[in-house]
């Protein structure tokens, strides 16, 4: 049924998705907050940049990453001259790729929720003497929890489904950069269709459950809010 590479691919994939989602939430939250609050004239430029991975083929991103991270590329060259090692073909490299690739799936739902709060709750909290940071954590975050829920699940699920980027910068090293989507691709290529079916079917069900969870949660949340 599943061989040891499939199991290790499953573990690497879940690890990659978890690490990437945590980093995405840490980076994505301040970006989304800033985008939702700012009246900066060129805000749309940043919004467009963040949305780029939605429309670009992942292979474009992977190809650029491969070149940038390589010893002759700007980032790889800098790392190398600082005595560091190249991050292509490493788990770290995959995390960097995934964070860029899944960024819009985290930032956009968060930004929508933050915008949906409006200015009033924050202003009320301010008049009650709450500091900006306090206001953010005790007012904005709880009110935006459906956004956090959506962002977390979409960021995680989208990273699990990633293919083009890891294909380009991963190198398919078992236990390090060999992920589930590539294991499926390899089974199809090797004409091992029954194993491909097992993994694909599993991924299909997992993805469905994750999305179902998001929609259920958001529905309950909106019913709760309308009942307030």
């Amino acid at each position, binding site marked *: 049924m599943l061989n040891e590479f499939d199991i290790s691919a499953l573990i690497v994939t879940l690890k990659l998705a978890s690490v990437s989602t945590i980093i995405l939430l840490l980076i994505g939250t301040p970006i989304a907050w800033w985008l939702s609050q700012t009246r900066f004239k060129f805000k749309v430029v940043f919004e467009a940049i963040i949305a780029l991975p939605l429309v670009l083929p992942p292979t474009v991103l992977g190809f650029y990453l*491969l070149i940038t991270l390589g010893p002759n590329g700007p980032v790889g060259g800098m790392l190398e001259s600082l005595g560091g090692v190249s991050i292509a*073909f490493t788990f770290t490299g995959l995390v960097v790729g995934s964070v860029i690739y899944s960024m819009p799936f985290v930032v956009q739902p968060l930004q929508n929720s933050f915008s949906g709060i409006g200015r009033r709750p924050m202003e009320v909290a301010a008049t009650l003497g709450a500091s900006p940071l306090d206001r953010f954590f005790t007012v904005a975050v709880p009110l935006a929890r459906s956004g956090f829920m959506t962002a977390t699940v979409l960021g995680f699920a989208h990273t699990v489904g990633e293919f083009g980027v890891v*294909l380009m910068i991963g190198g*398919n*090293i078992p236990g390090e950069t060999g992920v589930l989507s590539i294991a499926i691709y390899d089974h*199809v290529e090797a004409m091992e269709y029954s194993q491909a079916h097992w993994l694909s079917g599993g991924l299909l069900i997992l993805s469905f459950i994750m999305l179902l969870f998001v929609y259920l949660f958001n529905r309950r949340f909106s019913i709760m809010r309308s009942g307030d």
Partner: protein
Amino acid sequence: MNKINLLSCFFVIYVLSTTHVAADVLRVAVASNFYPTMKLIAKRYELKTGGSSGQQHKVVLIPGSSGKHFAQIMNGAPFDVFFSADEERPRLLEKEGKAQTGTRYTYALGKLVLWSPIDGFIDSEGLVLNQKDFRYLAIANPKISPYGASAEEVLRSLRLWDNMQDRLVRGENITQTFQFVSSSNAKLGFVAYSQIQNPSFFLRGSFWEVPQSIYKPIQQQAILLKDSSIGKEFLSFVQSDESLSIISKSGYGLP
């Protein structure tokens, strides 16, 4: 422009684009590694047919991995001829009745080289593999790529396979393996000789042509999928002296 105008505009474009290819079109699924060579051959073929009959034949090439092409053909992809990177898949298609029996033949022998973009890094006997002065060695995935399987065979013959494991990075096909090396992310790698012979690629660095005594050259086979005169004509053109010289110049061995 209003909606109806826009729609009719699309309709006209659609009609133009479909009627244009209604003539004799041959769809050829070709292994990625042979794609640059096949482009040259197809162009010659088109020119040739255009001269004699007046009705120019059009060859549409679909590059891709042979495993993917195999899966597509098994599920009814509209290809006329299949140029695989190996001999196993055409043989299976023949057995499954998805191809014309008796049309299968070896069109080229794939040769393996160890290549690095760094000048003088690779010696004429491949001893660089023993010195291990590199972090990554790129190979194609042996499980799915015949060039990868050959690379594994070479490393096993040299008794280096086991202790090379932590240095190996695997491309999903030989094209991607080439990319790993040409972008210097891997210092060296086993690629196809045809890739470094490709005229659109300016050869740099150093390479070792792996002797055929330590691996079996890759039998790249072709097979006719749908019975048609144009398909047969094209297959025999690929076996003509004119094509054979292109194949040989592209860095392949001749069967």
